[in-house]
């Protein structure tokens, strides 16, 4: 897998630039952690890659295919080859665990199969296999909102893996979880990345966890890459640069309420802008 991001910029509406002329090249497998304070542009960067957010300028190519130019069915085809897991899990609460997991195959089945939940046997086998892998095979018919946070994120991981992705985007997958569960989820992501040879782009607040689980760390500050190197290269000076002039060192434990972070993110990405993005996508 080769992901090439070339002078990528993004602004929401008439606001300030969230991503500034950003270049990033990722090759092979392994976990690349993206660190930086709230509002540095981490979420926006990930969402530009699968075009949940429309880049303002620049280009992104995945294995030679220019993602930024894709439309309609081609765009959806690209999305299904990129798995994504979210800070708030984003499971469909009122659907069962199995329905949520199978929704990872939505890009592969037709509308009738999707509506009637008649997925191919191979998909169902894959779903059971992955659910067993994460220890949730006994929860297939439970509603997603009855699970605990850690269980829900594991369903989120399984849903993303159902897509048989070439690349996994993880947007602060542990920020809504307690420290112990966070580590479990990161270990799961690490194991899977190794087993499936799957490259992972991981947004993460917790720098010590980034050091522990990633093979490469990218530091983002006000929309620009300010650090790019191995965990060993990330010394105090580099860390200070990444978080300079922003609140918190980022090295503290996971005590910050997730809601506060979500609010900070939301403040950066106004709801009206998000809505506009949804509509723009509709017309493609």
């Amino acid at each position, binding site marked *: 897998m080769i992901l090439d991001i070339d002078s990528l910029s993004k602004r929401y509406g008439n606001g300030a630039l969230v991503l500034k002329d950003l270049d990033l090249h990722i090759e092979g497998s392994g976990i690349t952690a993206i660190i930086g304070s709230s509002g540095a542009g981490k979420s926006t960067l990930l969402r530009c890659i699968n075009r*949940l957010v429309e880049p303002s300028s620049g280009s992104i190519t995945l294995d030679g295919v220019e993602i930024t130019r894709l439309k309609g069915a081609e765009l*959806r085809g690209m*999305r299904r080859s*990129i798995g994504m897991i*979210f800070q708030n899990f984003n499971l*469909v609460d009122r659907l069962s665990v199995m329905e949520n997991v199978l929704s990872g195959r939505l*890009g592969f089945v037709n509308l009738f199969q999707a509506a009637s939940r008649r997925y191919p046997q191979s998909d169902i086998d894959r779903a059971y296999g992955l659910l067993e892998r994460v220890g949730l095979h006994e929860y297939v018919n439970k509603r997603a909102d009855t699970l605990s946070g850690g269980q829900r994120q594991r369903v989120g991981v399984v849903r993303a893996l159902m897509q048989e992705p070439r690349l996994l985007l993880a947007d602060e997958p542990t920020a809504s979880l307690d420290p112990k569960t966070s580590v479990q989820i990161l270990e799961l992501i690490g194991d899977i990345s190794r087993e499936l040879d799957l490259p992972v782009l991981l947004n993460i607040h917790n720098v010590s966890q980034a050091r522990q689980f990633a093979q490469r760390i990218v530091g983002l500050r006000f929309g620009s890459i300010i650090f790019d190197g191995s965990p060993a290269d990330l010394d105090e000076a580099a860390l200070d640069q990444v978080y300079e002039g922003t609140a918190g060192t980022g090295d503290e434990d996971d005590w910050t309420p997730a809601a506060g972070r979500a609010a900070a993110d939301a403040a950066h990405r106004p709801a009206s802008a998000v809505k506009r993005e949804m*509509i723009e996508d*509709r017309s493609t």
Partner: protein
Amino acid sequence: MSADAPSASSGQQRTWRKPPAIANPYVRYALFAAVAGYFVWAILSLEISWQRIMQGIPRAVTIFGRAFPPDFSRRSLMVDGFVESIQIAILATFIGVILSVLLGILAARNVVPRLVYLVGRGIIAVARSFHPVIVAIVFVKAVGFGPLAGILTLVVYSIGFVGKLMAEAIEEIDAGQVEAIRASGGGFFKVLLYAVFPQVLPRQVGLSIYQLDSNLRASAVVGIVGAGGIGGTLMNSFRRFDYDFALAILLVMIAIILLSEALSGRIRQGLT
């Protein structure tokens, strides 16, 4: 135990009051004055006179006096009317709710392009702008007396109410779930099926039951202007001064509405 509360120890008293909803005092008092002024003007100009109310009371007493005892003897006429009303209400609710779901999607800002949204909102606004009786008069003129006019009227009525609330329910859904389905490569309809409908389903079922309830009531009213059902029977009995028969109809109507309200309340309770 609470001897040294912060305020006592610091020796400084800070007071707090809830800030008024309208910060500008001029605007606030102007609003109060405007409301008071409106009521004075309305009461004076509408010639609401105590005298006429007093004259009306004995007339009302005569009508009620003649209505007793209620006359249930013309049962078949009554049953026919009520059955027709209920048929109208159920059919209209069914058609109306299906159309409302479609219109609700078209009128939800977060799932359709702006132009479609405006058209959807427009249709709902038109459907909402007239009382069912006025709509019924138009449909009776258009398609003639009888239940068809009643069904069409209540379909419009249902669209106005359920469609608007469905659109609002869709606009309030969690965007994260939509994002997740889009990220997996789902197109417009798959997003609707997997991220939008599951979130609004309980709301939709509740609204449908409420609308059935509401249509039962309204079906009696639109019958008065000739759109079929028990309303017509009721109107005829008034016209012929059969107040005892009218009272019987009203009593049955109350019974049916109480029954449907109890049932729908029970069902909605089971949903949440």
